[in-house]
């Protein structure tokens, strides 16, 4: 495989690791867009990312001032982000993250053998809840995906799906029973999605679950998951267990997708899969000229 040559993708910020999982001054290795990278935090917690260098192998102690050539870097939502090209403006906002009563945590970074766009499409699809997340996010016979709205936001270049509702037996760790749960989905980045769902603790507000996909190559990702929850009752390990249980159920479904890249041609797959938000997402990727992790539509 050759490296990524898609300029749209090369110029994006990507999360590559959780700050909390990164030990300061110890080298961690990862792969982004087929490029071997290393990263760490310095003594005051500032991240740095560089192209892998034999002088500083994974696990070694490093004096961060020795690394003279580094990649662009940002800290956002508990993760270290970098960019291999010319970084665009800021990383997309998630305003709720800064609300003082939120519990923000890195739920997991899990390797999945699928393209990023396939994983985003699955994240947007409510139809699989009763079959894949049985008795948690859905239950038969409540299988109907009710009518919802999808649009490209006027203020930002992102897809927004609203008025999504689904009956869920146990929507979160703070739930006490089944309820009709409201969802809002955002896709503010070709490889990231942010989902809002009515909070089990306070139905007037919404929990936030964000998926930041790090493409290792066109058919493999590291899926980083952020939770920003309204849940005073449960400790972190319980919230993480819930999210990892859900993601562990999605994993084999994702890994069995064929082809692993997402076809953008509207005729490529049956209409069942291509529901409204999936159609919007595919069109949006096409309009941006994205080629990495997808099978572009023939002109």
């Amino acid at each position, binding site marked *: 495989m050759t490296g990524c040559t898609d300029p749209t993708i090369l110029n994006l910020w990507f999360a590559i690791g959780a700050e909390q999982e990164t030990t300061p001054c110890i080298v961690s290795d990862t792969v982004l867009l087929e490029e071997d990278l290393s990263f760490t935090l310095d003594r005051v917690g500032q991240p740095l990312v560089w192209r892998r260098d034999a002088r500083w192998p994974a696990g070694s102690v490093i004096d961060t001032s020795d690394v003279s050539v580094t990649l662009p870097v940002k800290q956002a939502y508990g993760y270290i982000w970098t960019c291999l090209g010319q970084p665009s403006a800021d990383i997309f906002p998630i305003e709720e993250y800064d609300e003082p009563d939120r519990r923000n945590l890195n739920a997991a970074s899990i390797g*999945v053998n699928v393209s990023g766009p396939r994983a985003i499409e699955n994240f947007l699809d409510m139809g699989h809840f009763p*079959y894949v997340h049985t008795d948690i996010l859905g239950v038969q016979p409540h299988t109907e995906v009710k009518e919802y709205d999808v649009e490209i936001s006027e203020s930002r270049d992102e897809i927004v799906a609203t008025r999504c509702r689904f009956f869920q037996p146990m929507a979160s760790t703070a739930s006490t029973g089944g309820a009709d749960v409201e969802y809002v989905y955002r896709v503010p980045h070709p490889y990231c999605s942010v989902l809002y769902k009515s909070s089990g603790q306070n139905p007037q507000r919404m929990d936030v679950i964000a998926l930041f996909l790090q493409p290792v190559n066109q058919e493999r990702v590291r899926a980083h998951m952020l939770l920003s929850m309204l849940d005073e009752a449960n400790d972190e*390990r319980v919230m993480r267990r819930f999210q990892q*249980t*859900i993601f562990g159920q999605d*994993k084999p*479904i994702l890994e*069995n997708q064929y082809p692993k890249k997402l076809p953008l041609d509207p005729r490529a797959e049956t209409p069942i899969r291509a529901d409204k938000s999936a159609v919007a997402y595919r069109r949006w990727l096409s309009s941006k000229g994205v080629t990495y992790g997808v099978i572009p539509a023939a002109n």
Partner: protein
Amino acid sequence: MIKLYDYELSGNCYKLRLLMNMLGVDYEAVPVDFYPGREHKSDWFLKINPLGQLPVLVDDGVVLRDAQAILVYLAAKYDPSGNWYPVDDPAKLGDISQWLAFADGITSTASAARLHEGLFYDFDIDACRAGAHRLFRILDEHLWFAEKQDRDWICPGAHPTIADIACFPYVILSEEGGISRQDYPAIRRWCDRVKRIQGFIVMSGVFPAGPAGGRLNALSAA
């Protein structure tokens, strides 16, 4: 009540949830943040298990580590029928024990491959996969000959034993480590039989037999 120190995505923890559910034994699961918290290496957990491994089971003052050892304990104590672990049948106990050791081999190969793919463990992935295929080939042949003698389970007899429970999880999760079961038809049929045992439950990554499984296949093929 029995306490199980548990991590949802662990196949070795799942073995114990599975057997306890089949036996109708109540227990309390104590979640341990294996990843990303690495709580199994924390001071408080190392006091319970100095090896820093899950699962651990605590019952009536007995503290046990090692999934296979715990299966032996649970079946010997909580299965009055003696089907799962026949304590008065030395030949069968020997047979079961040899397959419990085999299950450990599946853990160090197929489970290791899954940890490499999902959680970025630094293992030799090719060696893990080759080792798993070698064991799967042996298990497939064993089960194929068993079927020829009208036997459904790893060890002779009409009822499954803890050998089946010990081997099942990391076989059924093998594809997460990039190990296909396509060439092991007898293993595939045996997995389906395990899923039909009374009291069977799933974990993340494992799907039930029957209509729900069929529906999923239809979805992922679409």
